[in-house]
């Protein structure tokens, strides 16, 4: 038998239930009374940065081509020639799947077909079907997806920023891989990755909505147990090339046939763990609002000089193998913006932190969390973040309540000239 833990968050008036089934699968249910939509997600802690690991069947270490996690996502969401999106769509359910740097998720959204959707989702993931023909066909579709990214200036400026920071880690490579790398993918490699990373111990099931907790857990367990499950107790062994502390290159600049240039400033940080990752993301948001938003004198000056129209956005992204800050902006005056923001960052690092502003922004962020919680998609993002960082579901709320001015200070100090990069997509004059 399994034990169900209830995690209550008073601030958000919400409860999330957690249990680990005997078969190894972790199940999370975030209860949302009154909502009609139910979201179900089946996911694995496997994303594009992982390409070097121990094959669970042979026990041998193996390296696989870039883009294979994403390729696998495409192939799993298909059943004997029929696309899963279509299978769900036939019963009136919308579904999709996505691959990130560190996880892959398959999900459905339904108001009326909850049980059928769970059973279909489990079936899709538990019955892989790879053939030479369907692998070849997918190379065509993913090829189009990769090209779509190449035409998107926002996507390119983002990836170039990461490429500028990282020398070895696979985070520097497009999640979908490259036209060349996906050409090397075959059905045998897909099965190897599937067997290794789609073992239940490495997976999670998340439900958001107004459902009965015990019935839902039983339903998931029954469906999953109707397949042969390889029982695995230990974590998958994954290897990352040693990533040097130093950045790869100071600046990457490209031109495209666009009007509005895009600029990212990045800071490569030391890899953080668990709650530190959640905390840094919250601090980043507060720093973004305190120092770069429309509230600030900096933005106001740049706006008055015609450098900026929208405020720059600062975010933190981190996992167990990468960690960085990005500041995104659009401007026609690239050189002026670069100089101003570099000077400004040096200045705020030396200045005393405005405690009143800090408290105002902190309260604002607390209110924003409550507002965002009306959207079920924000609820699942919180659960998934907690799974990946192995932290309490509501760690963000707790960390926010306890945040101190000193946290802002140390965040600002982590932005140094040595770990700084610039990525620019300019227009063709």
């Amino acid at each position, binding site marked *: 038998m399994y034990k169900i833990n209830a995690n209550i968050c008073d601030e958000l008036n919400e409860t999330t239930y957690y249990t680990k089934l005997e078969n190894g699968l972790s199940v999370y249910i975030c209860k949302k009374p009154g909502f009609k939509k139910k979201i179900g997600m089946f996911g694995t802690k496997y994303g594009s940065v992982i390409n070097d690991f121990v094959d669970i069947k042979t026990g041998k270490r193996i390296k696989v081509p870039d883009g294979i996690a994403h390729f696998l996502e495409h192939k799993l969401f298909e059943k004997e020639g029929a696309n899963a999106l279509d299978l769900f769509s036939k019963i*009136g359910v919308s579904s999709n799947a996505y691959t990130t740097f560190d996880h892959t998720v398959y999900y459905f959204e339904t108001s009326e077909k909850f049980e059928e959707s769970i059973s279909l989702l489990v079936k899709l993931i538990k019955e892989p079907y790879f053939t030479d023909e369907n692998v070849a066909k997918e190379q*065509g579709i993913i090829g189009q997806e990769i090209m779509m990214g190449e035409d998107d200036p926002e996507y390119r400026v983002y990836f170039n920023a990461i490429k500028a920071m990282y020398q070895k880690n696979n985070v520097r490579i497009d999640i979908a891989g490259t036209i060349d790398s996906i050409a090397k993918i075959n059905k045998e490699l897909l099965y190897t990755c599937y067997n290794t990373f789609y073992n239940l111990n490495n997976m999670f099931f998340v439900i958001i909505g107004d459902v009965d907790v015990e019935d839902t857990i039983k339903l998931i367990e029954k469906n999953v147990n109707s397949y042969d499950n390889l029982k695995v107790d230990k974590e998958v062994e994954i290897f990352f090339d040693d990533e040097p502390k130093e950045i790869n290159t100071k600046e990457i600049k490209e031109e495209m046939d*666009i009007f509005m240039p895009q600029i990212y400033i990045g800071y490569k940080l030391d890899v953080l763990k668990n709650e530190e990752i959640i905390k840094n993301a919250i601090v980043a948001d507060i720093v973004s609002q305190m120092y770069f938003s429309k*509230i600030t004198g900096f933005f106001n000056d740049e706006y008055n000089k015609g450098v900026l129209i929208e405020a720059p956005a600062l975010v933190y992204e981190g996992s167990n193998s990468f960690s960085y800050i990005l500041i995104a902006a659009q401007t026609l005056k690239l050189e002026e913006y670069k100089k101003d923001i570099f000077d400004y960052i040096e200045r705020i690092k030396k200045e005393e932190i405005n405690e009143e502003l800090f408290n105002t922004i902190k309260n604002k962020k607390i209110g924003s969390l409550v507002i965002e919680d009306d959207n079920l998609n924000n609820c699942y993002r919180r659960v998934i973040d907690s799974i990946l960082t192995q932290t309490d579901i509501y760690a963000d709320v707790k960390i926010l309540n306890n945040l101190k001015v000193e946290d802002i200070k140390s965040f600002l100090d982590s932005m140094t000239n040595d770990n700084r990069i610039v990525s620019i997509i300019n227009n063709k004059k």
Partner: protein
Amino acid sequence: MKQIYKIDNNKFNSIYVSFNYTMNVNKEELSKSALLASVMSKSSKKYKTQTDIEKHLSKLYGSNFDVNVQKVGDLYSIEFRVECVNKKYLPNNVDVLNDCLEFLNEIIYNPNVENENFDKDIVEKERESILQKILSRRDDKTAYAVYRTEQLLCNGQIAGEFLFGDEEIVKNITSSDLYEQYNKMLNESCITVIVSGNLEGHENVDEQIKGIFKDKIDSKFSYDSLEVNSSRNDKNIDVNEVSESQETAQSIITFGMRVLNPKDRDFYVLNVYNAILGSTPSSKLFQNFREKESLAYTVRSRFYRFKNIIVIYAGIQKKNYEKAKKVIYDQLNQIVNGEISKEEFDAAKQSILSDLIEWEDSKIAIAKMLFSNLFAFKNDKITIKDMYENIQKVTLEDVKEVANRIKVEQIYLLGGEADVQN
């Protein structure tokens, strides 16, 4: 006339308040309205700069404010909106809703105007901002191709104009022009106020709004006196092909289609038609264009309810242009001939029905549905349940009948010059 719509549901934590000013405009007035909305979002008498605005809002526990513009068919609409937390969920139950309403009143009815002119500095900055939006519209290739198709289909009508207006017109707007447009917005628009979300403890929000805004929101026009579609959709025009080149890896193909001689019930039938054609993964385009022929990653069709037009768009390789056209025509013809399996038909209907139910899970989506029903149906009593029942009634014969009235008018290609892949 009822002007304040309340949609109350205590499953939410927060409240969305939306003031909409919807009006008839010509091409010049559209540009002026776009600039006006931008200027009004940045300044008022009390809050001179956007920094002042943001500082004020930052004290209201996450309350957010925005001014949006949209085309409602051939009408233009400016929305002033706030979102805030219900007092139940705030420390000491502070009531930020009242502050938000006062704030909206300040922004809308106390603008930064001296001697019938908007503040010139802000006008110049926002003019630059609007011009950049106009000039960067080509940066998102798919959106640009869809916009060009709308423009070709709705030539000379407001629905065919770019949302933020025309470069030459925007360059020449004066701050007194803006003041004139501001008065037009106040006096010659239909004002629709919608409050949606958790109204527990805020049940009297409509009275509260009337207390703050007084008779200012008694608008001269009502939604049923404004015409959303200025074209009659009765001319059968020959297919026109247009292509433009651009330095991209991918090319975008679009089909622009018109529903001829539209009827009242068409809205429901066209939703089902569109789902069968290309708005869901079980649609003909997704199944055949993407899955069977591997011609694209993205392929979709979009139905414009106010104009009775449909646009298909797909990202393809340029060398496949002729084949892509043929496959799209094949799908259209299949529907005309009634070659729709029961499975396809049921899936299309089911997906629309599920979407309808799920709209009620978003306080904003449900408010937007109410708004758009007002202008499309000229009726404020249509419920999600009514819509649900009407979709259920749609038959395969209905879809065939409407398909026979859908004519391709435009085929457009945004061709990738750098398209050399394999």
